[in-house]
């Protein structure tokens, strides 16, 4: 059987002013380009779960012929997308189904909005593919494919469910960044989060040995790849973290991951992290204002940590590991002054990189439900406006216009050429001060 697995990445900002700014601000363009250039680890895992007798082709959506042009024929097509591009995924699914090619849809958006997705697919996979895809294939071959398959939410890295991602499918492709996953889920459970926490019962960590095996396999398909760990919070378990760092250091890689600010509490972990080739950690700081953080997590974790932000950032960066501090604009306590405060905080903290996004109630998240119940969603259908840069809801303490203007002001002031160079220089000065240099 010939199976196509089609990945969709990258977003297009809808707000015209922001889109214009986006192409002129180096700090903004860079990260966007990086995200758009990552292969879909989810689909490589689906390929790994596919029995060897089937032929699998991995395709990037943007490499497909445009609408109105014939598509290559397959026996089965699997498509994975996130919210901002799900409408394009639905249109592609409709094109294949018109050719009488059966389509399976999966991914986080599909898991959170299964009824919506089902209208465009012969079958959908809810949650991860582990525990669902192998059965789906068997049923398909027997002519008995069901409408909906529910993947596992627990023990996804256990021998029964785990599969080795098919990195070999990327051979010959121009990826210089590769992804490997070490964990799924995040115990912080932020109200707005639309990441793997929504498809996992509890935080799950892959054995170190498996992670290293995957990295070694990935190294065979790309020369000098930069690794991005496809995790939401890598260092939840510090003991696991140290074991992993000791194992990854001999590979002499350069890599990036996402985690929380508590890494700064553990000096030994930080030293191992610095030695391991980790170039950057992305940390969801969300806001420098503790009032905005209040109620964000069930146990107020982020609100309680806010007082340590400045010192923690300084500590991490002093080791030569850059922090990409992420802030959300438009939280319920935010006013136009909060936006200026974010800029002041970024300056004071000397963050080497900053990511600003607008508060986004992703369909299916608790935040979306709360905003929906309060009648605060501005559009009844807005999947393709979930770009993280377009305002989709009624803010509490400012108008939509004020929020839009505020984001543009922040972008202009944080991502200009001058700021970009200032951060480069800051990083170089840190490196020069490191003992080993």
């Amino acid at each position, binding site marked *: 059987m010939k199976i196509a697995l089609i990945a969709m990445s990258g977003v297009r900002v809808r707000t015209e002013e922001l889109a214009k700014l986006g192409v002129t601000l180096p700090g903004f363009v*860079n990260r966007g380009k990086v995200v758009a250039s990552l292969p879909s680890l989810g689909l490589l895992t689906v390929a790994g779960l596919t029995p060897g007798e089937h032929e699998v082709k991995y395709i990037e959506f943007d490499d497909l012929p445009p609408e109105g042009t014939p598509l290559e024929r397959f026996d089965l097509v699997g498509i994975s997308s996130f919210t901002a591009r799900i409408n394009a995924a639905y249109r592609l699914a409709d094109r294949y189904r018109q050719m009488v090619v059966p389509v399976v849809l999966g991914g986080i958006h599909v898991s959170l909005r299964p009824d919506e997705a089902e209208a465009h697919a012969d079958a959908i996979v809810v949650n991860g593919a582990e525990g669902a895809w192998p059965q789906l294939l068997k049923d398909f071959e027997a002519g008995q494919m069901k409408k909906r398959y529910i993947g596992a939410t627990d023990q996804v890295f256990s021998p029964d469910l785990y599969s080795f991602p098919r990195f070999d499918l990327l051979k010959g492709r121009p990826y210089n960044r590769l992804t490997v996953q070490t964990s799924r889920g995040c115990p912080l459970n932020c109200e707005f989060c639309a990441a793997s926490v929504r498809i996992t019962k509890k935080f799950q960590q892959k054995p170190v040995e498996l992670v290293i095996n995957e990295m070694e396999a990935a190294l065979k398909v790309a020369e000098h790849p930069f690794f991005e760990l496809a995790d939401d919070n890598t260092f939840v378990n510090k003991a696991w973290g140290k074991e992993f760092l000791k194992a990854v250091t001999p590979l*002499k890689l*350069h890599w990036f991951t996402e985690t929380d600010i508590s890494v700064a509490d553990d000096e030994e972990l930080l030293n191992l992290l610095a030695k391991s080739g980790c*170039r950057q950690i992305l940390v969801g700081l969300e806001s420098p204002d503790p009032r905005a953080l209040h109620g964000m997590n069930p146990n107020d974790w982020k609100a309680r940590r806010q007082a340590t932000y400045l010192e923690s950032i300084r500590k991490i960066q002093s080791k030569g590991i850059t922090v990409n501090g992420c802030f959300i604009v438009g939280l319920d306590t935010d006013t136009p002054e909060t936006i200026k405060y974010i800029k002041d905080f970024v300056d004071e903290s000397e963050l080497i990189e900053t990511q600003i996004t607008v508060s986004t109630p992703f369909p299916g998240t608790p935040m979306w439900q709360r905003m929906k119940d309060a009648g605060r969603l501005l559009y009844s259908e807005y999947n393709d406006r979930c770009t993280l840069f377009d305002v989709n809801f009624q803010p509490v303490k400012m108008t939509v216009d004020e929020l839009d203007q505020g984001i543009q002001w922040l972008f202009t002031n944080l991502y200009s050429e001058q700021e970009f160079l*200032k951060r480069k220089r800051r*990083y170089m000065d840190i490196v020069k001060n490191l003992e080993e240099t």
Partner: protein
Amino acid sequence: MEDLATATELRKLIFELTKADVTQVGPSEDLMDTLGLDSLSGLRLLALVEKKFSVRFQDEELTSLRSIEALVLAILRARSVTAGSKS
């Protein structure tokens, strides 16, 4: 002469840092692309070059220092500025 010696020292430093065979890298070749350096590793290299050669590049030129040739010229320029300001 001075630029040849600088280029040799520079190649040595790049090798120490990246362990890549820099003898094969042409003077005007893009180091980031050829050696597969990500942007932060590129900045690390610039920082170490500054430290080793006791110079400080202009912030505005950081983005364009991507080849051995460009680096050598920038080192010589920075040295002459330092020497000039001392005299």
